[in-house]
């Protein structure tokens, strides 16, 4: 790792001030992606601003609209234990990485990083969540801008994520067996006003909504409704773990499994 300093603010206001001090400063969530990245010298921040000591952006509650609201510095393990009002989300969090990773990794860190194979982007996009920052609220549909790219401005900090709770939902992940990241993961959620299907791990463009499947499932929420649908492998990630065509096929399979699991 290149040398850097660490600040551990205890309030959001302090963290915002630190982030504004230099464009070379970088927010640090649980570090489960950023620390390995630093070790590979793929990043060289001047200062890391640790967000995990800020109590006001940690914890889980429900707002007046019935949304499950999760502070950005809440760990995956805390979501497993505390998001019982949204079981599909708690189940997704409980299958990220391994237990020790889940004790450190945070939802804000995952969404800010937007790894194309991460699980949380599928939950946020599949739920039509709202990403709250120190400056504004961003709809999930406007937030994800491609692999590792988001609508966050320089220095902007995610503070909270608000998830509308669906009538039915499930996440199905086909794990890349070595890393346990999603080779393909599909989050399906049925709301009163429609169905959302979000796919992670597959596309070169990062997490995306499969709109044809959403329309088919809105008319008939059953695995059979997807029989006639298929996706092209052209823009899918192709690597030694699976070709683009293979991933495109898996999207169909995992979507059906998610629909079945949602019941």
């Amino acid at each position: 790792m290149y040398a850097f300093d660490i600040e551990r603010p205890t309030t959001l206001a302090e963290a915002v001030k630190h982030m504004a001090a230099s464009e070379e400063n970088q927010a640090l969530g649980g570090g489960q992606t950023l620390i390995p990245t630093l070790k590979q010298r793929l990043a060289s921040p001047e200062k890391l601003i640790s967000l995990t000591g800020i109590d006001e952006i940690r914890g889980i509650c429900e707002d007046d609209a019935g949304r499950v609201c999760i502070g950005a510095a809440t760990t995956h393990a805390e979501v497993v234990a505390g998001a019982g009002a949204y079981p599909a989300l708690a189940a997704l969090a409980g299958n990220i990485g391994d237990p020790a990773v889940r004790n450190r990794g945070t939802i804000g860190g995952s969404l800010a990083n937007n790894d194309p194979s991460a699980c949380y982007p599928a939950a946020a996009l599949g739920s039509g969540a709202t990403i709250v920052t120190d400056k504004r609220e961003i709809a999930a549909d406007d937030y994800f801008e491609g692999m590792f790219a988001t609508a966050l401005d320089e220095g902007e900090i995610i503070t909270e994520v608000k998830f509308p709770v669906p009538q039915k939902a499930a996440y199905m992940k086909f794990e890349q067996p070595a890393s346990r990241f999603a080779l393909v993961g599909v989050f399906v959620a049925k709301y009163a006003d429609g169905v959302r299907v979000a796919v992670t791990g597959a596309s070169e463009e990062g997490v995306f909504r499969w709109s044809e499947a959403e329309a088919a499932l809105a008319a008939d929420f059953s695995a059979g409704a997807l029989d006639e649908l298929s996706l092209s492998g052209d823009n899918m990630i192709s690597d030694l773990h699976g070709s683009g065509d293979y991933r495109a096929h898996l999207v169909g399979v995992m979507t059906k499994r998610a629909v079945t699991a949602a019941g």
Partner: protein
Amino acid sequence: MPQVKMTVNGKPASGEVEGRTLLVEFLRENLGLTGTHVGCDTSQCGACVVHVDGKAVKSCTMFAAEAEGSEVLTIEGVAAPDGTMDAVQQAFQDHHGLQCGFCTPGMVMSARALLADNPTPSEAEIRDYLEGNICRCTGYHNIVKAIMAASGQDVSTIAAQ
């Protein structure tokens, strides 16, 4: 360099660290607690698992500065002061839960975290929980057996290997 203070195995510990000093480096190099191992250094293998404020974490993927004010438990703090092993350590010895021993500190710390959450885990739950702990001797059967035994369960049904 900034100072960091924490409690390690019940005793106050402090030292000067760089921002980039990992918790495992602080434990091994500043405090001389070399029981916590660095296997892969990429947060995959789990040889570096310690408890921070009661939670199992990979100490190669956490900065020492992030443990400021925390209670840290390493493998050195598991046995009683007179050297009597705790139930998990004793079960690893009784059931040959270690071969080369490199992964053992992390395995024991993960096992203790599991049993704190789930005092009588099934074989499947143990295997699932150990997803982030790799034994390159592939001694998993006896590790699983040891953890079941440490939880007071009958291990005669576990496949002998």
